[in-house]
């Protein structure tokens, strides 16, 4: 009975639970509610994914209004997979958040924190699930506005969180505005906001200056949201000063959802036959992705604050995802989709491990982790494991991503790019190993009070993600199957 309504429940459940959190007042109760809701969301996402894997696409009309008038949700393997990533990460981050939030956020704000968290979750899920381009904008704003607040809540520890939230607000709003401008032009030309209809009309229309301008606005707008180089400037500060749980959640989900939206627009809506697309991929995405990979990683090497280091690493990793798209072949898109998932796992684990360090030491810098290998063995071991996955060592999830990415490059015949991919991953060796050396080979600084291991409630979620990193590195059948189906769904939709 509930079965057919799962798509709307996926979004509505956190959306409704969010205001309830405000009413609960007490941080712990709000946390409990948020936790339950996000676990149910995760279950729904699994159910939806298994339906799309077997039964193809799901079409759901809100209030039973068919598309030209009403809003339609359209779920195929691609967005079902992203739903799974988003809800899965939130299901892991929330158990972790209780201790971390209690430590970093004043008691009075905690229920508000969980409200915003749920709103953000709901927004991200909505962006992913919807088949309506304007509805997408609405959810994008819901998620963005709540994200600005979440980032700003880091102000309790460091006032710079406020300015970074403000920068993020300005940049994010610019991105959203660009998107809406582009969408307006599209609506002008096609008279519809439903993605499938837009795709069909654009096919008939072919090239047209207005559509080209719309294309440019939309790509740049989403590019801002996903921190595509050189539109990434908001990201390092936002990730650095946000509360630990927020950083872990955002780094693993927000940019992933934006990449998904980009994939959807490029591959399904405008479609591979769109006149500008081939040039965009080869002459804009490819070089920008390569620059991002090298610039992001190089800057990461010189960071003192470890959260900022991982933030720059994220910019490089987003480069990998864009690179996969730019190959313009199935393997490339598959690599991007796999990396969406794997990067969520590794960055989630890494940021959460740093959160444990922050809980004990107030800050996670290259100085503060000295000698932590002995003092916090589990936390640092998790960091090393996540780092190995980031580097792409075999038997970790990161290796699978790299494998498909290099395959995609070679299939496209771009072997210099293949070498650049592996070369840039060697930069990751440097910035990860810098931390490992300090943590394991340097003595603890003089006068530091004895440090104890992080509480189990935080370690457990971290290690769940570490285990996932290893599991999906050893047995990638599942992820590769889904990613291939998702890539087919993305590519197949437009033609």
């Amino acid at each position: 009975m509930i079965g057919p309504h799962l798509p709307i429940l996926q979004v509505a459940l956190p959306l409704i639970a969010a205001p309830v959190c405000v009413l609960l007042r007490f941080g712990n109760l709000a946390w409990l509610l948020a936790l339950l809701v996000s676990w149910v969301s995760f279950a729904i996402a699994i159910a939806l994914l298994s339906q799309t894997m077997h039964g193809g696409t799901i079409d759901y009309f809100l209030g039973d209004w068919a598309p030209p008038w009403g809003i339609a949700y359209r779920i195929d393997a691609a967005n079902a997979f992203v739903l799974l990533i988003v809800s899965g990460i939130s299901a892991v981050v929330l158990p972790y958040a209780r201790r971390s939030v209690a430590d970093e956020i004043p008691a009075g704000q905690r229920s508000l924190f969980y409200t915003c968290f749920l709103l953000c979750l709901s927004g991200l899920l909505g962006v992913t699930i919807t088949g309506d381009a304007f509805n997408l904008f609405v959810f994008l704003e819901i998620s963005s506005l709540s994200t600005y607040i979440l980032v700003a809540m880091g102000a309790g520890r460091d006032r710079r969180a406020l300015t970074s939230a403000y920068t993020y607000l300005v940049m994010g709003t610019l991105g959203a505005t660009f998107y809406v401008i582009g969408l307006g032009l599209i609506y002008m030309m096609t008279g519809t906001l439903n993605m499938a209809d837009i795709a069909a009309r654009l096919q008939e229309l072919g090239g047209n200056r207005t559509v080209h301008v719309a294309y440019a606005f939309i790509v740049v707008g989403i590019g801002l949201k996903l921190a595509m180089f050189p539109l990434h400037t908001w990201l390092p500060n936002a990730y650095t000063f946000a509360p630990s749980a927020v950083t872990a959640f955002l780094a693993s989900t927000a940019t992933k959802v934006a990449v998904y939206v980009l994939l959807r627009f490029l591959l399904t809506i405008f479609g591979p036959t769109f006149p500008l697309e081939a040039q965009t991929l080869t002459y804009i995405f490819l070089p920008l992705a390569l620059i991002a990979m090298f610039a992001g990683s190089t800057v990461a090497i010189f960071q003192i604050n470890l959260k900022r280091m991982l933030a720059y690493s994220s910019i490089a990793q987003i480069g990998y995802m864009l690179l996969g798209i730019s190959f313009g072949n199935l393997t490339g898109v598959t690599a991007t989709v796999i990396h969406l998932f794997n990067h969520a796992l590794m960055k989630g684990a890494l940021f959460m491990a740093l959160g444990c360090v922050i809980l004990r030491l107030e800050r996670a810098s290259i100085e503060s982790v000295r000698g932590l290998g002995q003092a916090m063995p589990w936390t640092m071991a998790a960091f090393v494991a996540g780092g190995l996955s980031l580097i792409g060592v075999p038997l970790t999830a990161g290796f699978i991503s790299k494998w498909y990415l290099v395959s995609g490059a070679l299939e496209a015949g771009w072997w210099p790019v293949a070498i650049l991919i592996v070369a840039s991953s060697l930069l990751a060796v440097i910035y990860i190993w810098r931390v490992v050396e300090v943590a394991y080979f340097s003595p603890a600084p003089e006068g530091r009070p004895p440090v104890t291991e992080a509480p189990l409630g935080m370690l457990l979620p971290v290690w769940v993600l570490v285990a996932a990193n290893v599991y999906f590195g050893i047995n990638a059948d599942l992820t590769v199957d889904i990613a291939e189906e998702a890539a087919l769904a993305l590519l197949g939709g437009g033609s």
Partner: protein
Amino acid sequence: MTGDLNLVLAIVIPLVGALFIAANDARPNLREGVTLATAGVLFCVVLWVLQQYLSGDRPEATLLEVVPGLPLAFNVEPLGMLFGLVASGLWIVNSIYSIGYMRGGNEQNQTRFYICFAIAISSAMGIAFAENMFTLFVFYEVLTLSTFPLVTHKGTAEARMGGRTYLGILIGTSIGFQLVAIVWTWVLTGTLDFTAGGILAGKVEGSMVPVLLALYMFGIGKAALMPFHRWLPAAMVAPTPVSALLHAVAVVKAGVFTVMKVAIYIFGIDFLADTGAADWLVWVAAFTILAASLVALTKDNLKARLAYSTVSQLSYVTLGAALATGPAVLGGSMQIAMHAVGKITLFFCAGAIYVATHKTEISDMRGLGRAMPFTFAAFFLGAVSIIGLPPMGGSWSKWYLMLGAADAHRQVILVVLAVSSLLNIAYLLPIVARAFFLPPPPEPEAKAAGAAASPRKGGIAEAPLLCVVPLCITAVGCILLFFFADAVYALLEPLVMTGGAVQ
């Protein structure tokens, strides 16, 4: 998991051993007992595989499929059988020696040491029995990572720098080149299985063959082909049993083993010979052989000299692959075993000297032979085997390599091999000669260093028994390998038969 149990056991047993070692952290005797027992059981399992192999069976096992078409799978072929035997056999000797060395030197973190050692052996088994290039690569990387804590064992700034070079070069080359080569092969052929006769013939041609070969050869950093050899001398900061592991048991042997596997089963000897794709490699290998020997001459630190000697000796194997003729391949493959036994003897001796006298520089070892006769006698035997003189096992690998070079009509290589042997004599034998024939220097500070370490005049002051016995065993092994080389030959012969090269 499907297939024969023994192959899986060979990989799992050391891992289980590692767990038990960890559990017995506080009980050193039990912990070392577990290490020895694990080594013994592992060797028995490898013998079981050998027995099955000799009876004509071809054991194989599939652990799981990582992504469609890329399984972690194992099987047995001659080269892997040989490497598996060498690595598991020497692990027993090395474990006995480690106990003597680590206790004698009062080293820290011994539990971590034994755990990492066991993991390294497990990955060496994985490499030996890998059925495809993907499996091999996976275990290759595990081997690199599991030996990193061993190299940096001392935790000093010097160890950290050494570890940095070690990891940087090994990870750098393997991800930077080897992974690209593997994916490239995968995209070209759709398979990574080790197939007799190679999988690349007809799939890639022209100037791309040498490029792909270069990606593989420089990507296998563990084979220490110049200019990617720096990690070996850098890793000298490790305790001696680790150096023995690196040089003889697992790491470099895994490297040259991979070189051979790639040459024989990925490219195919015939394909290499026909396309001439390996011509450049002959010269790079020959250069490495000579250059590293020359550098070895200049080193006064014993372990550093041995390290450069290893760099030089490894390129014999690479040379064997590059010559791409039947005897050369045989000689190169034999060299894996012969060099292992010879070099482990030399390293054991270096470690025994260090434990007994705390001396690391060759110039300080004058007259030491009278105090440590067994050690230096063993050093002499090992050195003669490395040089390649009868009646030592090492002579056979040199013999077949020379045959192979003559087969390939490369007279220059014959000269290179001869000059290299002369250089080996020049940097190895003086050490023994100085120890036996020169009088010991008057050393007032030796008495202060400790009564046990300073020999009485004419007396014998060897290292602990647990250090001396293993090095005597391996020294005798060098001699035995000379007389039983036909067994090794018989084991390796199918390589050349199925490889298709004419003998």
